[in-house]
Each structure stands twice: as C-alpha cells, then as structure tokens.
C-alpha cells in the first residue's frame, strides 16, 4: 500500500518537529541542554556602566549566523556564517558614526564554524573539510576554494566541525562533534575516523590525530601557543568546562576511542579499558530495547578526577563553568591581550556561550604543572548566542552571534555585536588564587576595609559533578566550608582567606556578597567559581584575623522538607495560597529557572503562562521539574535538564505560582 506515512517519513529526517519514534529523536536532541542561568547576576544595567554592547547594523535579508570571526592585519573584521558566506567588514569600528560595509568574500561553503586569516588567505572548517580561500585576481572575492584536508564524515546532523585554531608551528587544529546513535539516540558515537577528536592539519594537508574524548567541541582557543577546548553538558559531560589540551589527551567522552587502534592515534586507551572502569549503562528492557540512562540520585557514582588514577591519559578540566550558572553551551575561548584597552583584565580569558548569550571571564594559574583557576560572570545581554569572539585592533571585542535553532537567552537569531569598555573601573574580584590554606582574592579597586574584614560577607561552598553516561549531572557532594581566618592587604586590594576543608578537584564557589569598595559600591559580580585541581604547597598564612568563635558558617542551604510523592494529589494543599512573582522570584533565580523561562514570553523554554495553560496539577509540575518530558514541547529545540536539586518545597511554590498564571 502506498500511504502518506511513507512519504512523510522521508521528511522526518529533515523536519525534526514531529517525531514520534525514539529513533528519530536524536534529531531533536541536543548539542546543549539549555537550562538556565542565574539572575542573581542579572545586573545588566550595572554592567553597562563599564562595558557597553554596540550592535552592528546589518542589511535586511542578510543573515549573519556567525560561526567564525577573525581580524585582518588592517583591523577589518571578517565573519564566516552558517549560510556559507565569508564577509569582510570594512569600517567595523564605525568611526565617525558611519555604517560598516560588508563585502562578500566567499560563499557556498558548508555551515562554517571557524575562521582564521593567515598569509593572505582565509582558512575555515566546513562540515567535512578544512578549506583555504584566496583572492588571486584582486577583486576582493575568493576565486580559489582549495581543499586543504578532506575530513571523513557520515552526514549526521550533529557532526559539526569547528576551527581552525592556528598553532605556533603554522599547523591548524580542527575539532569535530560526535554523531548520535540510532536506537540509542542519547549516546554520542563516532561514525567516522576523528569525529569526537581534535586533529592537527599542516598547511600541505597532512592530518595528525591530536586528542579525543570530545563530545561537542565548539569551544576552541589558541592561548599562548597552546590549544584550549571547551565542551558543554551532555552524555559523559557533567557540566561545561574549559581545558588546555595536549597531544594524546583524553577528555572524557568515550565515542572517539573507537579509533585509538589506528596506527597514528596518539591516544592508546580503548573503549573496553574505559568501560572496565565505568559502566556505560548500555542496558536493555524486557522487550530488548535500550534504556536511556538517567541520573540515579541515590547512587554516588564516580567523579571524573577519580578516573585519573586508572587512566593517565585523562585530562581534567582546567576550569569548570557550572552548568546553568555561568553557561550552558561553551563556545570560543580568547585571551585579553589588549594591554588594558579592554579594561583591567589583561591576560585573562573570556569564554562565550551560545545558549546563555553571555561572556564568562576566567583567571587561570598553573599549580603543580596543571592549569586551574576561577570563573566569573562577566557580561550578559547579548542579542543572540555568543559563539565567536575576537579583539579588534582598538581593544574592543567583536562578538559573532547565532542560536541556529537551539534557542538562546538573546532572542535574536543571529548578528554581530561589539563590546566596548567605557573606561570606568568596575569593582570586581579581579583574580582568585589558590593558596596552601585557602584562597587569595584580588580586587580591581581598594575595598572598604570594614566590609572586607567581615566574615559574614563571605561564603564558600564546594561541589562536583558525576562522570556518567547520563546527560549531564546535578551538582553533588555539596559542602559549606568554614572560613577560619582572613587577612587584608595594606593597600586594600587583596584579601586572603584561611579555609577549612578544601577538596582538590572540587569546584569552590566563593561569594563575597557585602564586600564594598572605598566608594561604598558592592561588587558588580559577587561570585567566583574556582576549580581546585591542586592545592599549592608553600607558606601558610600567619597573623590573620581569626573567625569569631560564635559566628556560624554561612550556608544558604534550603531547609529539608518532608517529601511527598509527586503524584500525591494532597500535595496541592501544601501551598494554600499561590505565592506572588515577587515571592517566587528569588527561587526562580536561585534554581536558574529564569535562564530559560520568562513569565509571558517564550525564551529557550516555554513561557510560564504557556506551562500554566497545560493544566498540570502542582504535583505534576513538580514531577516535571525533576523529570522533564521534552516530548511535551516539540517546538522547543533544547531539552530541559532534570533539576532534582530543587528542594520539593521550592518546587511546589514555583508550581503553585505557575498555576496561578492561568486565566
């Protein structure tokens, strides 16, 4: 029989929206699980006093879904886009107020996700190729589209290719996303050699496998001649992070291990060796179908650093970027080499984020030969996903943007913006450094000493993520640490904290709420996330101010509540009267809900008003917070991640408030 069904199934490949079968769901799955961020840091207005976003005008009909951005020696900025074009922007700085001019240098390339300029040619990664583009006849347009290196690819939608990044020896590093399984649509797999890898390619096209364990390596950077990479939450990836990568490193995702038996593979670890140490949870149900692994709250699981003793090739993140807090989909990594033209953060790193449409600032230091450091919220409010950044020759930062079907906090599809320092000094934690017995915070401005010496103004919490085949991980093993002593520097620029209970490899969240500068201004961003891979040796602190004996440790933990089962209809009664937005707002912020949801507007996820229209019970909403059902919202590209860490009482309040939005 000929039926319409047969025909439509052909189109299913293309149109991801209405897929019923699990097999097809890999299409509606994920590159990132967008969830969140915290409006705790939502201080756009305040940020704007120090860093302003200038949106470049773009002609109607010109869609700049930016996948690559670079500068030319003359300061012009060039963009590479998903539509396959390379644009050179003259007058990108709009000096004198006149508009930039966009010259189309090349076109027809396959969803470009990187761009550099080298010796008069552009180099960009297309889906299946590293390509060199040259204007030989001088008309401002490429006439040579040269294949530098043809890259194997199967044609799966998720097989994006990123780069290149230029290395000091003139070679270029390109990274490749994994595909996903057919039945196991949640499991990243490498269908062709070097998917899930970084590869190094010479000018004459020689390919050398470099490192693997990557899942969605959109985050790339060349920092001081070294290759850096960032990934985001996903299977085997608890949270986003950045890491410096050397040849032969294994970054944690098993897919690329399929090719480690190849003679030129610098990684020797096999899939079997890894799976002998950690269960990939390839289990089947009674009908013989694979079961999607989910987080098991009651199981401690394993942490990535614990694998290191068995797997020496494993490279740990230099700095975790806590999922939902700082970002959800790590992108470009660049270093501030503006010598102050961009503000007080020279030498630090900036990391973009497609879903959160923000920038994170990272201070790195090397302890025992390993990178680690602190990540700080820096700037949000970009119009679209911040995928690629480059510093212009005046020290301002150009940000190439797109959300290309994944949704982003910035509501525009695509564009290019410029971030300019206003010249005013923001009051920020400039650096956080590890010390043998705690941390030392350096501020950008001298502090009000009374506030900086007050123990009540600090809180340190440490936590970590599980290493598991599950999509992401909740934050686990949380501890609030006792700050036993502190010492201010005479110039008021530094405070050193003596901290009890430091744990190596854990993320240490340092809040300095209440610390003010000499002008009595609070910190622009009051939180830092320090990944403590190593506690340095050295001198311990002396002559510090001890913590007052009767002062309790700050711990904004949430009170335990008696758990009711989500299906318990009586759960409704717990909240007699629906809370107001003002009442739930702190909860929505704290649990990073507002990163993806707004009250009456679609963002990454549906508006709360639209959730209310579904007519779920409060208990059902609570259960959906813990175990979201993305299939209920096929119009939304990005899955909500399970949020088991939201306490039941908070979830119920949020649910009651959502339902109060019903008209």
């Amino acid at each position: 029989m000929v039926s319409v069904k047969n025909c439509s199934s052909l189109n299913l490949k293309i149109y991801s929206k209405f897929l019923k079968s699990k097999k097809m769901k890999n299409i509606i799955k994920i590159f990132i699980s967008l969830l969140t961020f915290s409006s705790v840091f939502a201080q756009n207005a305040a940020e704007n006093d120090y860093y302003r976003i200038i949106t470049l005008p773009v002609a109607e009909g010109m869609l700049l879904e930016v996948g690559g951005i670079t500068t030319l020696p003359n300061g012009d900025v060039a963009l590479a886009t998903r539509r396959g074009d390379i644009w050179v922007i003259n007058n990108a700085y709009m000096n004198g107020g006149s508009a930039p001019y966009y010259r189309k240098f090349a076109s027809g390339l396959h969803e470009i996700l990187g761009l550099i300029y080298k010796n008069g040619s552009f180099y960009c990664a297309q889906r299946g190729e590293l390509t060199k583009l040259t204007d030989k006849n001088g008309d401002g347009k490429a006439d040579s589209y040269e294949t530098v290196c043809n890259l194997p690819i199967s044609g799966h939608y998720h097989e994006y290719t990123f780069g290149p990044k230029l290395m000091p020896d003139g070679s270029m590093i390109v990274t490749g996303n994994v595909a996903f399984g057919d039945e196991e649509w949640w499991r990243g797999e490498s269908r062709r050699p070097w998917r899930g890898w970084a590869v190094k390619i010479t000018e004459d096209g020689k390919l050398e496998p470099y490192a693997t364990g990557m899942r969605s390596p959109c985050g790339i950077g060349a920092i001081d001649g070294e290759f850096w990479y960032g990934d985001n939450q996903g299977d085997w990836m608890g949270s986003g992070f950045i890491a410096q990568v050397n040849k032969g490193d294994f970054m944690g995702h098993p897919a690329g291990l399929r090719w480690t038996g190849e003679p030129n593979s610098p990684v020797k670890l096999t899939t079997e060796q890894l799976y002998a140490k950690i269960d990939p949870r390839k289990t089947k149900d009674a009908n013989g179908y694979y079961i999607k692994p989910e987080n098991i709250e009651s199981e401690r699981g394993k942490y990535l650093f614990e694998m290191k003793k068995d797997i020496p090739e494993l490279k740990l993140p230099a700095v975790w970027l806590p999922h939902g807090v700082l970002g959800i989909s790590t992108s470009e990594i660049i270093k501030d080499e503006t010598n102050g033209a961009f503000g007080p953060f020279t030498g630090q790193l900036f990391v973009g984020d497609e879903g959160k449409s923000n920038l994170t600032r990272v201070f790195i230091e090397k302890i025992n030969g390993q990178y680690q450091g602190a990540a700080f919220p820096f700037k949000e409010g970009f119009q679209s996903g911040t995928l690629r950044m480059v510093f212009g020759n005046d020290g301002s930062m150009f940000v190439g943007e797109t959300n290309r079907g994944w949704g982003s906090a910035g509501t525009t599809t695509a564009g290019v913006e410029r971030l300019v320092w206003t010249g005013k000094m923001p009051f920020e934690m400039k650096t956080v450094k590890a010390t043998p017995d705690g941390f030392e915070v350096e501020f950008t401005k001298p502090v009000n000493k009374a506030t900086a010496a007050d123990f009540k103004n600090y809180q340190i919490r440490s936590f970590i993520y599980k290493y598991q085949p599950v999509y992401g991980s909740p934050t686990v093993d949380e501890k609030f640490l006792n700050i036993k002593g502190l010492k201010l520097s005479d110039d008021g620029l530094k405070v050193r904290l003596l901290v009890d209970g430091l744990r190596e490899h854990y993320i240490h969240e340092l809040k300095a709420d209440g610390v003010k500068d000499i002008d009595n201004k609070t910190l622009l961003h009051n939180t830092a996330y320090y990944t403590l891979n190593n506690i340095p040796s050295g001198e311990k602190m002396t002559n510090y101010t001890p913590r007052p004996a009767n002062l309790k440790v700050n711990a904004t933990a949430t009170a335990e509540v008696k758990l009711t089962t989500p299906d318990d209809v009586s759960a409704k009664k717990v909240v007699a009267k629906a809370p107001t937005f003002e009442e739930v707002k702190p909860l929505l912020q704290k649990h990073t809900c507002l990163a993806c949801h707004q009250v009456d507007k679609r963002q990454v996820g549906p508006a709360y008003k639209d959730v209310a229209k579904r007519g779920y019970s409060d208990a059902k909403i609570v259960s959906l917070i813990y175990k979201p059902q993305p299939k209920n919202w096929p119009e939304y590209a990005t899955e909500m991640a399970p949020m088991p860490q939201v306490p039941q009482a908070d979830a119920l309040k949020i649910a009651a408030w959502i339902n109060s939005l019903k008209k």
Partner: protein
Amino acid sequence: MTKNFIKNLIFCGLWASAAYAQQTLPLNDMSAFRPIKENWSIVGSVVSNIDQLNAMTTESGSGILVCKNEIGKYGIEKDLLTLMEHGDLDIELDFMMAKGSNSGIYLQGRYEIQLFDSWGKKMAKYNDLGGIYERWDESKPEGSKGYEGIAPRINVAKAPGLWQNIKISFQAPRFDTNGKKISNAKILSIILNNILIHENVEITGPTRGALVDNEVSQGPLRFQGDHGNVAFRNIKYKSFNQKTLAFSDLKFGVYKGNFRTVADIEKIKPETSGNVALLNWNVSNAENEFAVKYVGKIKVPVAGKYTFTTVHGGNSQMKINGQEAFKNGWLNSGEDRQMTIDLPAGDVDFEMYYWKADGWLQPSLGLYAESETIRKHALHYANSALVANPTSPILLTSAIEPVILRSFMDIKEDGKAKRIVHAVSVGNKENIHFTYDLDNGALFQIWKGGFLNTTPMWNDRGDGSSKPMGSVISLSDSPLLNVLASPTNSWGNLDESYRPRGYELDENGQPTFKYDFAGGFISDKITPSEDGKLFKREIAVKGSVTNLYARLAVAKNITKTPEGLYIIGDNAYYLKVIEGTPSIRESNGQKELIAPLSEKITYSIIF
C-alpha cells in the same frame, strides 16, 4: 508543530491512493481507438534527432503509438480519439517530441494539456509543454480572443527524442439533474518529468480546438495529431465514476477527560451531543483531553472493496458494518493509517471514536474513502484535517552568477538511500544545475528547473542537506576516472592516490574542480550552454598517467545514433563527445562509455 504535514500531504498525497490497479490502454494495435487516418500507427521503436525538424524514424513492432504528420498540414480529423470515454481520470504516459513538434492531450476531447518541443525555453507559456491551453472567444477583438491559458509553474521540457513522463489528475465538470453545470472541470494536478507543474486549477470551459464546444460528463481522450511528429507509450489510467460514500444520521457526543481506551470514554456521559454531516474534531470545543464519538450510517453506492484512510493527532478507533476497521491506535498529526474492507451496497453502520491526551499534539481528524471506481474523497470537513502552518521554505535561486553551495545530498544508489557528504551543487541562470561529488570526482546529478531547496539545512538546526528543485536526471556517483591495466578490467573505486583539491572560479564564477589521481593533476569543468539545453564537460590531466580512463556514462543501454550522439539509458539523455575517443563496452551487465584520458576529453550532456 507539525509544520510540514500539509506539504507532505500535497506532495505525497497526490498519487498516494490505495493500490488499485491502473488500466492500460493497449498499444498492440489500434483497436483501442476510433478509426483514424494513416498518420497514427503502432510501432516497436522510434528514433528522433535533436537537430532535424520533425525527425522521427520508426521500426515495426508494438508498444509505441506514433503520429507522423508534416508540420503545417492541419486538420482536426487527424486527431486520435480513444474508444474509452471518461469523466474523472488519472492518467500517466510517456511521450517523445520530435524537434519543433506540437501535440496535446485533450481530456474528454475538450481540455487540452499542451505537448510541445519547449526544450531550453526559459519562460514557459500556456502553449509550452505542460501548459493548460487557452480558451478562445471569436467574438472578442483581435488580440484578446485567447484567454485563461495557464503556463506550467516551471519549464522542465527535455530534448526532442528523449522519453518524457506526464501524470494528469483530472476532475470532470459536474452537472445538476437539468444538465446545468454546477462546477468547473479541474486539473487536480499535473506532474511533468517528476515535477509538479499544476495543482488545483479550474478550467472554466473547453479550451481552443475542443472536439465539441460544450461540456459533458463523459468524453473520449484525444491526442492531437496535426501539428507534427509525436510518440506515446505506457498509457495507463484510472477512470472514476462520480459516486461517493456519504454519512446519514451521523450523531456525535463529546466527552471531557484523559482517556486511554474506548472503555474509559464509555464510563462517562457525553457533555454535549448533536448531529453533523461530516466528521469534525472541532465539535469538541476543546484542544486537549477530550473524546468525540460518532455513530451513524454510511451509504455505500455499490457493493465492493473499499479502502479507508484516517489521519489524526491522538487516538482513534473505528468500526464499519459491525467490523473493527481501525483498532485503538495513536498517530502523530499528519500521519495516516489505511485499511481495506468489503462492504455491501446500502446503509452500513459506522462508529468512530477520536480522543487526544497529549497537550503538545495539534488536534486533527480526517477520514477518506476510495475504491477501484470511486476517487479518494474526504468524509470530514476540510479544516478538520489541517494541522498548523507549513514551514516557510528557504530557497536558493540562481540569478546572474553561478550559485555554488556545498551541502549533504541524498540520492538513491542501486535502490538504496545514500548521503553524499562532500557534495557541491552549482546553480546557473540558464536553469540547468548539477551536483558534484568531491569524493569521487563524480558529476552525479543534473536537473532543470529551480535550483535548491535549502530548508532541510537552514531551518532550525537542520540536517546539513539540501534538495534539487527541478526535474533530476541521476547519473552515476562512481569515480569518473580509473586506471585500467586492461580496457576490459571492470570499473572500480579510487585508490589512496586520490586527493581532492577543491575548485577555482573563472571570471564568470564557474568552478573548475581539481584533484590529484594516480600521479596526475586533474581538472574538471562543467558549464551550461547559453540556451540551457546542455552541459559541456571538459576533463583534463596534467602529468603522465598511463592507462587512465574516464567513464562518461554507465547505463543498461547505450546506443550511438547515425549522427554520432550517444543515447543513454531508456532515452534519458544524450551524450556527445567533442574531444576524445570513446567506446561502448559491456561490463557486469551494463553498458559503459569509456574513453582513454591522455590530455583532454570534452563532451556534452544534452537533456
């Protein structure tokens, strides 16, 4: 959600009726036709010529209906009429035009679908191939006598002497009992060389040159025979009466709640109920968590086998004539299911439940019936089966310069789906386009019409692929070049000496593809002719490679015409070698046209 279903229904639904056999118009002799003059005959093969006006030579045999008529010798008596008379009709056939020739298929002898040698025309008019010919009013002043001719959406005409295919779906005019016309004749669709060129077009009356200047329920099929040489074969049709199935005394009840089975629904009482003429989910006055139950009779015009197709978002269950027709089953919006059942004539019992519990699904409900003689028709209000809005497509058209785009490209190879991952498509203002596989140096498809539909790649996340928007001729995706130690060795894959080098653009923006192979440096350039009738391909090698061969074509049949053209496949396209010494060889049951490549081979693909 489900944005593309309407599109699917349109594109797939046309010929997606149940598999009732088509009838074949026998072409063993002329017995299927009214007596006719000698210009029409049955032959075994025909050969035409792309350069010579009205050329068509034949060999005796059967299976092909051919008309031989000198251009300029007109007369309606030269037209061929079938004995078969038809009202509603689906017809499909192959035809071949001689150069400069003109013919037509007159539905009911009255409504002409134009056949014409429109090869290479940029803008097709109503009087080009596939046009619905104009009507004519002698009383109007000169210059405005002709009216309401409808041009095809695009011109996909092939060269003279190539077999072309047309599928026409026609709905006859309807008359009341007094013989007064109550609805116009309608072209439901025409698909020419696999491209939809008309859809749902009403024809207000007979077109110019109608057999009789009136409109009727039944009339013969008529092939025009007085404007030049033309051939037909594989004429297949389905003829429908105008009967339909209809409900009588159809009652509905609406239930509110979250149901899994009919038993759940029957536990409660309907909130509202009433009578309706056709199925409509909207009587529920709810978007979700409802059920509608229909009970009534279906009037079956004649006893026989009937096929029912249902589309819905959510669950349905249906009984006809006391038998379970559709079990409880869940469908996504836009999906369908189908069953066939024997029914007696007269009123039979009908019962259907439709319910929905998934908030994200768009409600929809449709039911279609058809039989061997009854065309597929809806038993629901049209809007009840519509779901959401189709995606606005992202189309890439070729303007002044060639448009080049890399994407994944899906093809069929030996009946299997294959995704070509290093594909480059080139669109030309001449409206002929091609896709090249950088992994094989293979020109694997050419087409005429629109350039690319890039929606699959650029809408939402996309899947990295695009699709041609025209009438495609699939060529081989195998490597163009091989080193053959002996010219009888079979064609193989490329070895590791193959290395793609990309492409360079000339001053007109035309790409030349480059690669290294077997120690040689290969360049491969494919350019359209200005008249949009052919591609010229120039393959050159630098460096010395011994025993290097190019395979220009592979097909079941390759024949050489007296004029030196190669006819490839079942008259699918012509190949003309300008520079090179090709030979036809037989290999693995296929014909191959191969030529040694020492410096340069140049050839054209004419289609």
